[in-house]
């Protein structure tokens, strides 16, 4: 909207309106239009209605419609660009006016009376709120009418933390630290084993004693505990394979998983 072409009297266009001068001053001689100053068509209508200088409950809606339409016409004559909502309101009011002038029996539903009454009620409400705003702003406002203490000492509750713990927590914490940070040493449990070297020695030595086939198990240490016996069996088996590979022993097994026999290799070439 522009504010340079202009037909009507001032609606207060201040940005910092504090509501004290609520009544719009009516100055019929200095009418100019500044649509920016109105908060939409309803606001303009309220302003026009108030110019009728009667209670909002007894304004003439027909006169109000004429005023509004006249206003819009003048704005158009001045080639003012009007916001769409002002034109919509103008069209609606023009319709309302024509409907109101019809004989009662030709009136449609909703009746123009109803529409007019509702418009009037809306204007009353807007007017009431506008007055209320003005009175509200006119009250004893802090910083304008009443003043608070300039330099209040302030109330203060200093929060002080009282730390609490106990002996058990302390000792437990130390235990936790010590346990967590004790050097970690990984030990492999000592187990009785027969190494491959000792099995080789043992088996080749025993092979030297006899020429007969001997079962592998008879090479094992006689009274060994079960864990050592297991280790000795594995080592002796590997030793037997090794001796066979070197051509120092011969192996024989009758059946799968059957007893494994070995004897000294006969020197035959």
């Amino acid at each position, binding site marked *: 909207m522009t504010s340079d072409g202009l037909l009507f009297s001032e609606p207060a266009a201040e*940005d910092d309106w*504090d509501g004290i001068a609520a009544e719009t001053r009516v100055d019929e001689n200095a009418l100019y239009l500044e649509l920016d100053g109105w908060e*939409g068509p309803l606001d303009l209508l309220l302003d026009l209605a108030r110019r009728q200088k009667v209670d909002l*409950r007894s304004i003439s809606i027909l006169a109000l419609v004429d005023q509004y339409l006249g206003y819009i016409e003048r704005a158009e004559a001045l080639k003012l660009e009007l916001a769409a909502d002002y034109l919509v309101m103008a069209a609606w009011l023009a319709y309302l006016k024509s409907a*109101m002038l019809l004989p009662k029996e030709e009136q449609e539903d909703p009746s123009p009376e109803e529409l007019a009454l509702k418009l009037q009620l809306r204007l009353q409400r807007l007017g009431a709120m506008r007055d*209320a705003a003005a009175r509200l702003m006119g*009250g004893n*406002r802090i910083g304008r009418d009443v003043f608070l203490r300039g330099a209040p000492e302030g109330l203060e509750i200093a929060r002080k933390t009282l730390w609490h713990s106990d002996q058990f927590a302390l000792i437990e914490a130390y235990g936790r630290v010590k346990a967590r940070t004790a050097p970690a040493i990984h030990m492999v449990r000592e187990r009785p084993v027969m190494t491959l070297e000792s099995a080789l020695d043992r088996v080749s030595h025993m092979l030297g004693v006899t020429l007969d086939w001997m079962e592998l198990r008879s090479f094992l240490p006689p009274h060994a505990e079960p864990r050592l016996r297991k280790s000795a069996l594995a080592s002796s088996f590997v030793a037997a394979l090794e001796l066979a590979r070197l051509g120092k022993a011969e192996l024989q097994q009758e059946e799968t998983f059957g007893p494994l026999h070995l004897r000294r290799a006969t020197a035959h070439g």
Partner: protein
Amino acid sequence: MDELARAVEAALFATEEPMTAEALASFLGDAAPGDVREALKELSEFYGERGVRVVERGKRWHFETAPDLAHLLRREKEQVRRLSRAATEVLAIIAYLEPVSRAEIEAIRGVQTSGGTLDVLMEAGWVKIAGRREVPGRPTIYATTAEFLDHFGLTSRKDLPGIAELRATGLLDPVEDAYEDLVGETEAERAAVDSDEAVEES
């Protein structure tokens, strides 16, 4: 002057924010809120016509200067927030009709309310979001705050200028309700209310 009254007087003098009787009681240790309220009333009466007074604003109490001295003090101290006309209207609508949705505000003003207007009022601490209306769309509804009452010198919303009269004349009711009320009346009454009677006859 008893010790509690002295303590309440001092605390109210020293505080930077208005305080409820309960807050004062809790601040002053183990005082009974009832006793504090009693002390506040006494103080309020005691200061009465002095240069400063003790007032209640939305259940919170504070000291302020007497309003009739405004002209003496205003000169250098005026620091009031200037509000746009739109903002004052929106504030009034919220105050008188709370809680209201933006659509309801707009219905009364006949124009859209820019988000900035509500922001200004919320930033000032005078308006707060008061939940949502349980209707389709669940619109946000707005209400005024204790700071609003404080700033505008109102003891409670009942103190809003003219609110009782506005309520009695139905001006706080929606247009539709008001219309129903009106057309429910007899023809005679309607004619009296109907402003366009003369026009219709012409």
